[in-house]
């Protein structure tokens, strides 16, 4: 009894970890497994193993155009939101101006508001402006909610930057522009890269706001949603799994690179 209690007190954290990760990864494992299912109409029942779905990821109507839209929108929204968000983050992190406190609070609002409300409001605005719903309205919507996350991420990085490093650069004959180029930007860059990855994954993933403002344009989440009722093709699982492993690869590569940078050669 005593040894059992001791074993538990020593290994409780490990047990907890195993349970936690199991909980997190069961859906992923399920998705991955069913990407190999030899399905007929609905991919809900296991019917046997096949490579066919992975060999022909575009084998089902509409799935690849939807994926293409998501990637294009994701890249575009990320690009715009990262630039704008980084500029806002520098303004908020570096300069005292009238209304800074208010801006700081307002930046959080899109993160805190229900997506449903944001989506519906955007739709109203687009309709009132007489804009055609589609690719560009989705981009505008995604930029809007991505900016907040970029600002918060980049601002944290700027806050952790020792101001003496920039002072040292100025002291060593670098003017404002050179100081930014040689010292500030390289040091904040990892934060900006992190923010961009976050923005892309948020955009790629978004369903609710996109659903309001998409018109006839289909993104990957919209495709999955509309086909879930009629039986989702295993190709969706293939794409989902591929995205998961791609993300994993990026994270692992990022960690290896940052470790190398820290240790030097």
């Amino acid at each position, binding site marked *: 009894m005593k040894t059992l209690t001791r074993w538990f007190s020593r290994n409780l954290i490990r047990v907890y970890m195993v349970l936690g990760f199991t909980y997190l990864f069961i859906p992923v494992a399920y998705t991955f497994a069913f990407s190999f299912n030899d399905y007929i109409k609905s991919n809900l029942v296991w019917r046997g193993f096949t490579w066919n779905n992975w060999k022909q990821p575009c084998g089902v109507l509409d799935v690849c155009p939807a994926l293409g839209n998501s990637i294009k929108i994701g890249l575009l929204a990320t690009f715009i939101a990262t630039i704008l968000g980084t500029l806002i983050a520098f303004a908020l992190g570096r300069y005292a101006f009238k209304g800074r406190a208010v801006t700081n609070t307002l930046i959080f609002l899109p993160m805190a508001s229900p997506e449903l409300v944001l989506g519906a409001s955007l739709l109203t605005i687009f309709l009132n402006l007489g804009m055609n719903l589609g690719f560009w309205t989705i981009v505008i919507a995604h930029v809007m909610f991505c900016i907040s996350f970029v600002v918060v991420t980049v601002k944290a990085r700027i806050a952790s930057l020792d101001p*003496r490093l920039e002072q040292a*650069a100025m*002291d060593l*004959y*670098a003017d404002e522009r050179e100081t930014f180029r040689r010292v500030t930007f390289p040091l904040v860059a990892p934060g900006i890269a992190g923010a961009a990855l976050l923005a892309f994954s948020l955009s790629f993933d978004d369903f609710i706001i996109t659903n309001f403002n998409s018109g006839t344009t289909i993104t990957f989440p919209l495709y999955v949603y509309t086909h879930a009722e009629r039986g989702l093709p295993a190709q969706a699982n293939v794409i989902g799994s591929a995205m998961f492993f791609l993300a994993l690869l990026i994270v692992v590569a990022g960690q290896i690179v940052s470790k190398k940078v820290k240790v*030097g050669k």
Partner: protein
Amino acid sequence: MPDASTSAKGDLKLSNLTKSYGDFKAVDDLTLTIPEGSFFALLGPSGCGKTTTLRMIAGLEEPTSGKISIGATDITDKRPYQRPVNTVFQNYALFPHLTIFENIAFGLRRRGVKDVKEQVEKVLNLVELPHLADRKPTQLSGGQQQRIAVARAIVNRPALLLLDEPLGALDLKLRRQMQIELKWIQTEVGLTFVHVTHDQEEAMTMADTIAVMNEGRIEQMGSPAELYDNPKTAFVANFLGQSNLIQGNIVDSDGDYHVVDLYGQKTKVLKNRTHSRNNSVLYAIRPEKLRIDTENHTRPGNRFTGGHIVDVSYIGVSTQYQVELPWGQEIMVFEQNDDGIPPLDKGDEVTLSWEPSFSFALDGAQDANAGSEVNPEAE
């Protein structure tokens, strides 16, 4: 201090320099000339305005009023990168994303210097770290980072090198070693060094001239020996080393000496070491200048009788006694352990004696504890 009108070419001149934050004056009407090629220390407790002064010279802080010039050039309104001034920052501020080589080359490259490689290698040899050129700052020890920070600044051969508490982050042993090394580097390169510190030992070891700062003003300026042997205020007397300050009155004159009455005991002090506007003085004597003896064995000179030892600390090279005088005041006595006589005991009745010319006298209206309560590590 050389006269401002006869200053040489590269002297640093601060004229009526003031920096206010609202009602608080961090630096209050500072006027100062630092001669070219000297090792100058601004010494004071935290919050005395020394770092603010340094930052104004570097251009990182804008003066509220006053003027800064180097030689004939007014640099008051110049941007930091337009000044022939380089700084060794507290905690060094080495660029973490650049190699040691690129850190040192930074200033040279910005100025478009041609033989960058040669100059960087030369300065790396000067600080004896040529093998670290390809490393990143985080891979270096504190002492190595410190030397690289110095190298990164002096490679530019500025008219003025500013050092902001450069040794504060190092442990005691390394600090002592770096003090000697910095002094050597300064002699070697012949640049003007302005060094800000709260550590009086550090200032005295390295600087030719020390300005003791307190509440935004300079209390006293002079060589380490001048400041230690003949302080003009209680703050300086207590901040540089320890002093026993005893309230008394000048009652008579005897040649070069004033005769001072201290609670009924007559003592003497040199007139040119007396800094008081009236007869009320703080009579001052350093603990190591006092000789301690049992009643039956006394020496010539000034003396206090009727004291008794309340505390003894034996610290190897010397023994530190705390002695209570007849009027209740406790004073410190440091006795060198060079005579083979075992230390006296707690409770022993003693006589203290000293050479009158070693004492000094300060204005009696001052707080006798000024400068002794400040915590030098508070920065």
